[in-house]
C-alpha cells in the first residue's frame, strides 16, 4: 500500500518536471496557430502566420543563411573532427592529455567569451564580418562536439577487427576504408547532426560575428521581438524548434541501432 503511494507520488513528480520543461514550448506552439495578433487571447485556429512567413522575403533570406552556414560548417567540422578523433584515439604522443583537454575546453568556455574573443580576433586581423566569419566561428565551436562524439564511438570499438584486416594483408587505407570508417560511421553521423543542430540554434556567438547579408534565423527572431511578440515569431520559433528536435531524434535513432548491428558483427 505504502509502496503504491510512493510510486504514484514519484510519477506525479516526474509529470510535474516534464510539464515544467515542455509547457512553455507547448504554449508557444499553440499560440502560433492563434487567429489574433495578441498572445493573451485565443481567437480561433489558423495557419495564416506560417503562410505569412513563407511570403516574407527577410525570413526566407535568414533561413537560407542559416542553412548554408550550418551545412558548410557541419561538413568542415565533421571532417576535421573525425580526423582529430582518430589521431587522438590511435596514437600516443607527448602532451596528449593536454591537447585532449584543450580540445574540450571550447565546450566549457562561456559562449559570450568565445563570441567576443572571435570578434576581437576578426577585427584585429581585419577580416570583414559576414558569412565567412560566421562559418569560421561555427566550425570552431562545433569541432569539439564532433571530436567527443566520434571519440566515444572509437573508444567502444575493438581493435581486433582492424588487426584481423591487417593480418589478411589489407593495406592501411583498405583497413580504414572497409573496417574503421564503417564502424565509426554512426558516431560520425551523430557528430555531424549535433554540429548541424548547434549551428542552426546558435545565437550568442553569431550575434558577435555576423556582418552584412548574414542574419541567421535566431538573430532575426531576436530583432523581431523588439517590435513586440507577434504570432509570426511564435510560428518561426516553432519551425526552428521542430527542425532541431527532428535532427536530434535522427541522431538518437542512428546510435542504438548500430550497437545491435555491432553485436551481430561480433
Amino acid at each position, binding site marked *: 500500500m505504502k509502496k503504491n503511494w510512493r510510486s504514484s507520488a514519484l510519477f506525479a513528480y516526474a509529470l510535474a518536471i516534464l510539464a515544467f520543461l515542455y509547457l512553455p514550448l507547448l504554449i508557444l506552439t499553440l499560440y502560433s496557430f492563434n487567429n489574433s495578433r*495578441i498572445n493573451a487571447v485565443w481567437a480561433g485556429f489558423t495557419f495564416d502566420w506560417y503562410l505569412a512567413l513563407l511570403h516574407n522575403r527577410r525570413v526566407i533570406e535568414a533561413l537560407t543563411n542559416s542553412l548554408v552556414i550550418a551545412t558548410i560548417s557541419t561538413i568542415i567540422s565533421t571532417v576535421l573532427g573525425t580526423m582529430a578523433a582518430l589521431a587522438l584515439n590511435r596514437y600516443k604522443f607527448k602532451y596528449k592529455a593536454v591537447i585532449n583537454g584543450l580540445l574540450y575546453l571550447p565546450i566549457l568556455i562561456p559562449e559570450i567569451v568565445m563570441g567576443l574573443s572571435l570578434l576581437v580576433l576578426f577585427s584585429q586581423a581585419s577580416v570583414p*564580418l559576414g558569412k565567412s566569419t560566421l562559418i569560421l566561428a561555427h566550425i570552431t565551436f562545433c569541432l569539439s562536439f564532433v571530436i567527443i562524439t566520434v571519440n566515444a564511438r572509437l573508444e567502444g570499438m575493438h581493435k581486433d577487427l582492424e588487426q584481423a584486416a591487417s593480418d589478411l594483408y589489407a593495406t592501411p587505407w583498405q583497413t580504414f576504408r572497409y573496417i574503421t570508417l564503417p564502424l565509426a*560511421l554512426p558516431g560520425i553521423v551523430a557528430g555531424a547532426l549535433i554540429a548541424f543542430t548547434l549551428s542552426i540554434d546558435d545565437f550568442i556567438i553569431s550575434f558577435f560575428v555576423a556582418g*552584412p547579408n548574414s542574419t541567421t534565423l535566431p538573430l532575426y527572431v531576436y530583432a523581431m521581438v523588439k517590435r513586440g511578440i507577434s504570432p509570426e515569431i511564435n510560428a518561426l520559433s516553432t519551425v526552428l524548434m521542430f527542425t532541431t528536435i527532428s535532427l536530434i531524434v535522427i541522431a538518437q535513432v542512428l546510435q542504438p541501432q548500430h550497437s545491435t548491428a555491432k553485436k551481430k558483427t561480433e
Partner: protein
Amino acid sequence: MMKKRIAVVLMGIFAIAILAMGCGSGAKTQPVKSEPQVLNLFSWADNFSPEVLAAFEKKYNCKINYDVFANNEELLAKIQAGGSQYDLIQPSDYMVSTMIKLNLLEKLDKNKIPNRNNIVKNLQSPAYDPTGDYSVIYTWGMTGIVYNKKYVKETPTSWADLWNPAYKGRVILLNDNREVFGMALKKHGFSNNSIDKDQLDTAFADLKKLAPSVLAYDTDTIKQKFIAEEGWIGTMWSGDASFTYKDNKNIGFIIPKEGTVIWADTFAIPKGAKHKDLAEKFINFMYEPKISAQNYEYIGYNDPNEKAQAFHSKEFLSDPMLKVAVDDVKQGEWLKDIGSGLTLYDRYWTELKTIK
C-alpha cells in the same frame, strides 16, 4: 541493412552540401560582379514596407542586404568593430550624437538628398544633429500617457495622474531608465536631461511613492498588456499607442502638459561606407512623397514628410494617436547623452526596481 541506411543519410547530407556550396559560392561571386549595386542596410527588424524596398531595388537595379539589430548599443558595437561593412544604418537620436562624437559617421551630401526639404521644418535640424549634416530623421514619436477609457474616467492631463491611488497595481511604465526618470523629472518641471543631484533625488523620492502601484516595467510586451486590459494607465510611445488602439478602441493617448521625451530613428552613413552614393539615393527615394506615404502607412508611425500628406489615406491622417504627437511636437525634449551622469540614474534605477 544498417549500412544502407547510413549510406542513404550520408548521400542526403552530401547532396545538400553540394547544393549549399553551389549557393554559397554563387552568393559570394554575385556581389563581385555587380559590386556597385549592393546596399548593405543595417536597421531595426520590420522597419520598412517590403514593397517600397522592392521598388527601390527595381528602380536602381540593385540588391538590398537588410540585416537587423535589436538595440543602439549593438549597432554601435558592430560599427566600431566591423569598420565599413554597412552602407546605411539607423541609429536613434542620442546614438547619432554619440557616433558623431566618435567620428563614426560620414557627412551626407545634401545636394544628393533634395527630398529632405520635404521634411517638417522643426524636424530637419534636431538637437542631436543641429546642422543635419550627418543624419536624416526617419521614424519619430513621443512618450505620452496611455490609458483605458473604461477604467480611467477622467482624461489625464499631467504626469501626476499616474500617482492617482485609484490605479494602484494597474500602472505600467516603460522598462527604460531614462524614460522613467525623464518622466518624473518633467513632472517637477525639470529637464529630462538633468544631472543635478537634488533634482534627481526629488524625482527618485517621487518614483518610490509610485513604485507600489506599478504592475510592471515593460517595453517589449506593453502593447499586449494594454490590449488585454491588464494595465489601465501608463507611459507609452505614440507609435505603439497607435498600434494598441487598432486592437482596443478604449485606448486613449495624451501628451502631458509638463512636456515629455521626443525620440527618433534616423538614416546615417557610417565612415568608409563602400556604397555611399547608393545609400544617399536610398534616403532620397524614401522621401519621395508617394513612396513615403506608402512606407509609413505600412510601418504605422508618424510620417515626417510634409509633401506626403496628400497621398495618405484618411484613416492614417485621422489616427488620433499619431495626431496627438504631431499637435504637441513642441512639448518634446530630446534625450541627450549625459555621459557620467548616467551612473546616478543607473544606481537609482536598480534600487527602484527592487521595490515592490
